[in-house]
Each structure stands twice: as structure tokens, then as C-alpha cells.
């Protein structure tokens, strides 16, 4: 199991390659969409790079459970309901959803995903 620093270094490398950003822009607190300008297609690119860097398999929807965000049982008027938030927490134990929970607008989830969340995700996968 690599150390947290080693995981961060590889995640940073993946993000630098996928998003064309500078090393120093990739801080643990940086948000992927807000700070690093990731677009939806970049998430597929990032997933490919993480799989290769860590020799892991990431299933569709595992990093970003889009199926929950498009499910009418969990989303009403553009907001994720309590049941949906609980489901997201279950599926995303690696992410800090406390900020999202206070205003669970669907678009906010991707906006608030941070580099640290990505590192936590990898750590979670490696520990599984």
C-alpha cells in the first residue's frame, strides 16, 4: 500500500496530464471543476490515468455516481433529496459531502469534488 504522499503524487501527475494544469495548481483543496477547470469528458480521462497509475479497475459510476444524480427517486427540482444524499454517502465514502449536503443541488456535487477526494478514493480502492 503506497503512502498518502505517494498517492497524492500520482494523483497530481494524472491530473496534470489530463487537465494540462501546472503541478502547483494541484493542491489537496483544489476542486476539479472549479479550480482545475475539469470538464465532464475529463473525468473519463482521469479514470483511465488513475487505473493505469495504480493498477486498479474503476467501474463506471464508481468515482462519480451519475446514476443517482439522474434518478427521479433521488432528485427533485434539481436537488438531491435526503434518501439520495444517504445513497451518495454510501457510494462515496471517500468524499466529504458535508458542504454538498447543506445545498444539495445536483451540479454542486461535481463542482465540490476536490483533489483530496480523489486521493481518498484511490486509498479506498487500494484498501478494498
Amino acid at each position, binding site marked *: 500500500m503506497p503512502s498518502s504522499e505517494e498517492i497524492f503524487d500520482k494523483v497530481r501527475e494524472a491530473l496534470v496530464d489530463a487537465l494540462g494544469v501546472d503541478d502547483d495548481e494541484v493542491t489537496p483543496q483544489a476542486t476539479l471543476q472549479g479550480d482545475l477547470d475539469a470538464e465532464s469528458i475529463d473525468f*473519463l480521462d482521469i479514470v*483511465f490515468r488513475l487505473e493505469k497509475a495504480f493498477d486498479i479497475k474503476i467501474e463506471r459510476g464508481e468515482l462519480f455516481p451519475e446514476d443517482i444524480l439522474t434518478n427521479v427517486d433521488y432528485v427533485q427540482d434539481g436537488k438531491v433529496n435526503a434518501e439520495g444524499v444517504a445513497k451518495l454517502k454510501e457510494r462515496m465514502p471517500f468524499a466529504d459531502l458535508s458542504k454538498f449536503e447543506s445545498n444539495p443541488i445536483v451540479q454542486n456535487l461535481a463542482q465540490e469534488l476536490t483533489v483530496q477526494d480523489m486521493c481518498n478514493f484511490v486509498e479506498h480502492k487500494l484498501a478494498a
Partner: protein
Amino acid sequence: MRWFWIDRFTEFVCDSHAVAVKGVSLAEPHMHEHIVGYPIMPNSLVTEGIAQAGGLLVSEHYGFSELVVLAKLAKVSFHSYVRNGETLTYRVTVDSLRRDGAVVSATARVGERLHAEAQLFFARLDESNDVTGGVPLFRPRDLRHWLQLVGVFEVGVRQDGTRIREAEYPLVETSAVV
């Protein structure tokens, strides 16, 4: 102008790699329109040729039955100019294949000269990201014709060396086209 930017495959190994060639001729209008008075092959069209070669290789993985689109050029660099009378050789190699897409690395060479290097991402559009309301964007018979023109079934093999055959793929009309 017809949107064919590879002339023929010379190798096509499923889920692995393919090699395609493109002859560059003064008979092509773009040679005279890109830089007037100095005919060179536009690098955008070299990229398109690479994407067509890689896209067909990826499309085969999904049985030539799914919509595969170029989603992103992760990297691309060019190192020379390609002139009339030269032949481009595109080599595309599958780096990674997933249910939702693929990564392909590619080179373009003229003889031994390295002209371009690229890394491309292809996305597979399935029922979950339907963009046409379930109506196909192209006719299977048109895809079949293209595959025939560029020799996919003449050189295409699986990784165990067995030939792929046209009849193994659903390249027949099943529904209306937009």
C-alpha cells in the same frame, strides 16, 4: 470532398493495434488551400486520419455496433511537414479499453521520419448517453462500405491470428436513420 482520411489498413489486430496508410496527392483540394503556394498536408487532417484509424479499431471492440466518438485529444505534437508524393503511415495502439471508452496512442510517420504523436480518448455512446433519441446516426451499410473500402476485413485478425469476417458483425440495416 469525401471524409476519408485513411486509404487502407495494412494491419488490424483487434483490441491491440492497427496500421493504416494515407497517400498525399496534389489532386486533393486541401493541399492547395491550406497554405497557398506551399502545398502541405494540414495537421488537422493528419489528426483526423489518426482518429479514423483509432476509432475503427475501438469500434471493432464494440462489435461495430455502437457509436464511438472522439472525445478528447489528450496529447498531440507534430515534428515535420508532409508534402505531396509522400505516404503517411498511422500506427494506432490501444492503451486501455473500458465499457465506456478507450485510450489510443498513435504515431504518424513518413517512412522512418516521425511526423506526429498523439494520445486520443474515445467515448462509447450507449443507451445511457443517448443523443439521438434512439435513432442511429449512420447507416450500418455505410459503415460496412467504409470498412470494406479501407480493407478491414482483408487484413483484420484477432489476437490469436484468426481472421475476422464481415458476417460476424451486425452491419445490416435494422432501423431508420436521422
